């Protein structure tokens, strides 16, 4: 079976981007919307067709899914090191094609309604296509450098889309923050790539990830400060991944990124780009697992677990629904990292890896749905804040139902998608490390609590002060909601472990009933607490919050990490280093140069008096010189 058409999947959105970008002024907005949707529809069709071919028609060879690589040289560094451009087809890249296509298509359709009448309509769709192209390139990358290239491109698309409302100062600041923070993380990524290239002589995933290959077997050959250089490289690469996936402490850009249009938040900052970090670790999983007995992988697990907890706590306190969802995304990404971190390699050992990818898939569906529902609400009442909402279930039935489905899914209520994937994560954690399992379980409860807090806050409780009666959003907005709700319901029934596993051989999973029951119970407690606090307006919630005192205030202020970063950048980098550099340059470096010039001028000013033009002076000098010379001559002669 031929998979050559996969190359078209990224090229279609690229073509759409070029068409919309070049004929920016000439295309009517309505047309550009159609072009965008049509392009994505084709790409999505191709993605499903490829997945069908890859998993079903071709299937396994000798018990494993084969990795298919097509590539061409893009640039040569040395005889052995080079950047290739190509496509790598294996179970996780095919899965990601589906995720990116589905979400992007839904967001395209949704945006046609959501962005209607916006002056930058064509530009918006151009940027969406640019992003989709870059994301496809990222998931299909065949080597570290190619993934880095598209990694930067998704970063810049994100920058452009966060700053889409560019006349708003806060959007501009958020866009800049997102770019700079992730760029800082990418610095680690890049240095990691340089180390890997130097010590293993290749950037190719296939060669690097081969468990019997030299790069994995010889990991101990060079070490630096007690750790293998490759471990260092993997840790640095993880910094890059942590930046993109908003892991603590590089998470500060994600809440601010909510300044972008809401469909963009659904696409980029919930379902696709932010999972790039998880995907990167999964892509290099054999290296993470085998090198130095998974030292780097342990770090991944703990960072993931901490972020999951940290973000969930903050999510409880936020009052902007998009920010709640942003922190929720961070928390769920932490889950995925945690799952990767506790995973083994072969068969059932590799449960965490599969669970992580499974959760990535289901989370993409229900989190995109949550964002699009939030967008639908914001579209109706023109506010992001919980205090302006309430009682909307009467006015927006479809949004209400779909939001509820997504909320149940993320809370892990069976049989919705989130239940299955989260359960696998918790099982994997339980089998690996009880401490991490307890954190995961606690977070599951918190998740259910915060998501139902906003659900009740938006759709139940006291009705907001609406100027006009809010209306259900038009069909272009609700259709994607319904489709995603469908995926959020059935997504969990896909036998994921058949298709996706660390060793690509697949394995069977069975529900671990005791653990599943505990997890569901934790979720139900969260929902029940929300019900008590928020379904009807009452004072319980405030009392509860007050009970935590200062801790609540800290969490509300996101534990003051923004302030900390601001201090470091403003005070130390800007006013400390940059200002000093600028002043040093003006005063000392340039000052020295100008000083030399002025000194020359002064000296010549002083000695120019000697050239007085008077004959007497010259005669005097002549005679004086002659006398001095004569004295010297006589002196030399006599000795």
């Amino acid at each position, binding site marked *: 079976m031929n998979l050559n058409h996969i190359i078209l999947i990224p090229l279609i959105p690229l073509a759409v981007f070029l068409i919309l970008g070049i004929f920016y002024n000439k295309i009517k907005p309505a047309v550009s919307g159609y072009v965008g949707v049509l392009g994505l529809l084709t790409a999505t069709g191709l993605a499903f067709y490829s997945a069908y071919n890859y998993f079903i028609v071709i299937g396994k060879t000798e018990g494993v899914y084969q990795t298919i690589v097509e590539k061409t*040289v*893009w*640039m*040569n*560094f*040395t005889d052995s*090191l080079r*950047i290739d451009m190509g496509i790598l087809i294996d179970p996780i890249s095919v899965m990601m094609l589906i995720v990116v296509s589905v979400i992007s298509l839904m967001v395209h359709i949704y945006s046609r309604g959501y962005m209607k009448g916006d002056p930058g309509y064509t530009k918006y769709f151009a940027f969406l296509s640019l992003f989709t192209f870059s994301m496809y390139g990222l998931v299909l990358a065949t080597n570290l*450098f190619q993934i*880095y*290239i*598209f990694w*930067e*491109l998704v970063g*810049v698309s994100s*920058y452009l889309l966060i*700053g889409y409302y*560019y*006349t708003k*100062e806060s959007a*501009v*600041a958020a*866009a*800049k923050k997102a*770019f*700079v923070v992730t*760029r*800082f993380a*990418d*610095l680690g990524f*890049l*240095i990691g790539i*340089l*180390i890997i*290239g*130097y010590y293993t002589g290749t950037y190719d995933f296939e060669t690097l990830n081969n468990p019997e290959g030299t790069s994995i077997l010889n990991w101990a050959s060079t070490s630096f400060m007690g750790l293998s250089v490759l471990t260092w490289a993997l840790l640095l690469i993880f910094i890059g991944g942590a930046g993109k996936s908003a892991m603590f402490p590089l998470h500060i850009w994600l809440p601010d990124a909510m300044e972008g249009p809401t469909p963009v938040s659904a696409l980029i900052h919930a379902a696709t780009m932010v999972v790039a970090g998880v995907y990167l670790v999964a892509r290099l999983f054999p290296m993470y697992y085998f090198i130095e007995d998974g030292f780097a992988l342990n770090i991944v697990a703990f960072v993931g677990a901490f972020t999951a907890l940290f973000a969930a706590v903050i999510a409880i306190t936020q009052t902007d629904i998009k920010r709640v969802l942003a922190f929720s995304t961070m928390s769920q990404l932490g889950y995925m990292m945690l799952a990767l971190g506790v995973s083994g390699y072969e068969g059932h050992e590799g449960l965490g890896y599969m669970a992580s990818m499974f959760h990535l898939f289901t989370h993409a569906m229900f989190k995109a749905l949550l964002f699009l529902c939030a967008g639908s609400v914001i579209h109706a009442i023109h506010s992001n804040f919980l205090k302006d909402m309430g009682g909307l279930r009467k006015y927006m039935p479809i949004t209400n139902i779909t939001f509820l489905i997504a909320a149940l899914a993320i809370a892990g209520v069976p049989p919705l998608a989130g239940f299955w994937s989260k359960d696998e994560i918790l099982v994997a954690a339980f089998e690996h490390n009880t401490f991490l399992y307890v954190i995961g379980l606690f977070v599951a409860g918190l998740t259910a609590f915060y998501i139902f807090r906003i659900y009740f806050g938006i759709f139940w409780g006291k009705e907001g002060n609406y100027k006009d009666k809010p209306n259900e959003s038009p069909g272009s907005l609700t259709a994607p909601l319904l489709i995603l709700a469908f995926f959020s319901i059935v997504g969990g029934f896909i036998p994921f472990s058949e298709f996706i596993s660390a060793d690509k051989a697949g394995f069977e999973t069975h529900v671990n009933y005791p653990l599943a029951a505990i997890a569901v119970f934790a979720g139900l407690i969260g929902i029940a607490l929300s019900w008590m606090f928020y379904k009807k307006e009452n004072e319980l919630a405030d009392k509860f919050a007050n009970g935590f005192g200062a801790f609540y205030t800290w969490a509300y202020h996101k534990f003051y990490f923004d302030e900390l970063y601001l201090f470091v950048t403003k005070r130390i980098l*800007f006013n400390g*280093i*940059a*200002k000093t*550099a*600028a002043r040093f*340059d003006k005063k000392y*470096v*340039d000052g*020295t*140069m*100008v000083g030399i*010039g002025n000194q020359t001028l002064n000296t010549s000013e002083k000695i120019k008096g000697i050239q007085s033009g008077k004959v007497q002076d010259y005669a005097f000098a002549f005679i004086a010189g002659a006398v001095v010379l004569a004295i010297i001559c006589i002196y030399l002669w006599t000795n």
Partner: protein
Amino acid sequence: MDILSLFIVVPALAVLVLIFTKNLKQARMVALAGSLVQLGMAVNLIFSYLKEIETNDAIMVFTKDVVWFKNFNIHYNIGVDGISVALLLLTAIVVLAGVFISWKMEDLPKEFFISLIVLSIGVYGFFISIDLFTMFVFFEIAVIPMYLLIGIWGTGPKEFSAMKLTLMLMGASAVLLVGILGIYFNSNADGGALTFNILEIAKVNIPFEVQRLFFPITFIGFAVIGALFPFHTWSPDGHASAPTAVSMLHAGVLMKLGGYGVFRVAIFLLPEGALHWSWFFIILSAFGVIYGAFAAIKQTDLKYINAYSSVSHLGLVLFALLMLNKTAWNGAILQSLSHGFMTALFFALIGMIYGRTHTRDVTKLGGLLKVIPFISAVYVIAGLASLGLPGFSGFVAEMNIFVGAFENDNGLYRIATVIAVSAIVVTAVYILRVVGIMLMGPVKNEAYLNLERVQWYEKLGVLLLLLPIIAIGIAPLWLSEMILKSLDPFLKGVL
């Protein structure tokens, strides 16, 4: 007439014709015709060169040798390799773009275009010279018109800036001359005759003590014009006062003479000296990379920002050259080209913004995306290119430099490399700061609501510069392979 000498004859003819023009219209037409022909020749040269090297494996091709001054064995000796061919194309494109940008040069147009073209003669001559002395002469030809161009057509404290720039570059020339003469008087170390011919000298085994003495002298002599820290301070003032096209030409092309000279003369002819001294200049240039980037953060004048950005980007060129391996060298040449296009583009855009708003102070500007969308959008693209985004030439160059620099397994070099790499973050900060303040946000001044739309000649000039940035960024293979092939001769001495 051989294919290379035309690069000097055609602009010389253009100057001759320009003398007889009467007004701006005639002058710019002549300048345009001249630079168009030049660009055609440069493009043609690339194809001829690629064809020639299939059969000819000499270090330099299309050579021509005429004795110029017999007593000192000075020749008019010219030839090109992959590096100079690429730089000639850069020059031709920047000159043409400069002519477009100066389309409305009302003030003494004839004299302006004459100076501009004389300057380009110096640059063309420099890139095709094989004879050290001839090279030096062209170097001076390129520097002198700068004084007039800034002093007469400049803005602000133009006399001071012109003087500062010229004096510092002349000081460097004096140092350089010492270096060149030092090489010349040791070119008979193997018993042959004294010669200025670079290819001949490269075969001579100049004693190590001599190399150790003259490498830093030659290096600094060239590197001043390549904005080596701490000799870069002529550049911010000079650029700030210079008229747009001059800034473009100066930062885009003239500053490249520094890196090219360092490579072609200092490293090629004094490789042992380079090996001995590289650690010192690597520290200096790596420091310059990060220092320039930090200094750019706090500037408010657009031209100063760009000047300090050049210090940072060109610091990377010298840094890469001193890494003494092919990958880094390839990166250095690519960075020279990339920076040439990018910085010329920046100065062109800054000129357009200044021409409309009469200020270059970023804090006074704001929301330009709304009022001059084309110029602003290109500025954003140029900014993204400058911060090394993949898909643009800067990324290609930087990655070659970083991978090449990492080939040196030495603690000190590693630290310097990490410092240089970390400049990518600082660069992002100062670029996005300008984009955020100046282009995005609300429109700060009501007077800006009615700014003049972009004119066709401005569009042409800008697109001319943008095109190669994207072309190199998307498909770097042919260019980097062409350059790589020319690097082997340089490698012999430093192995």
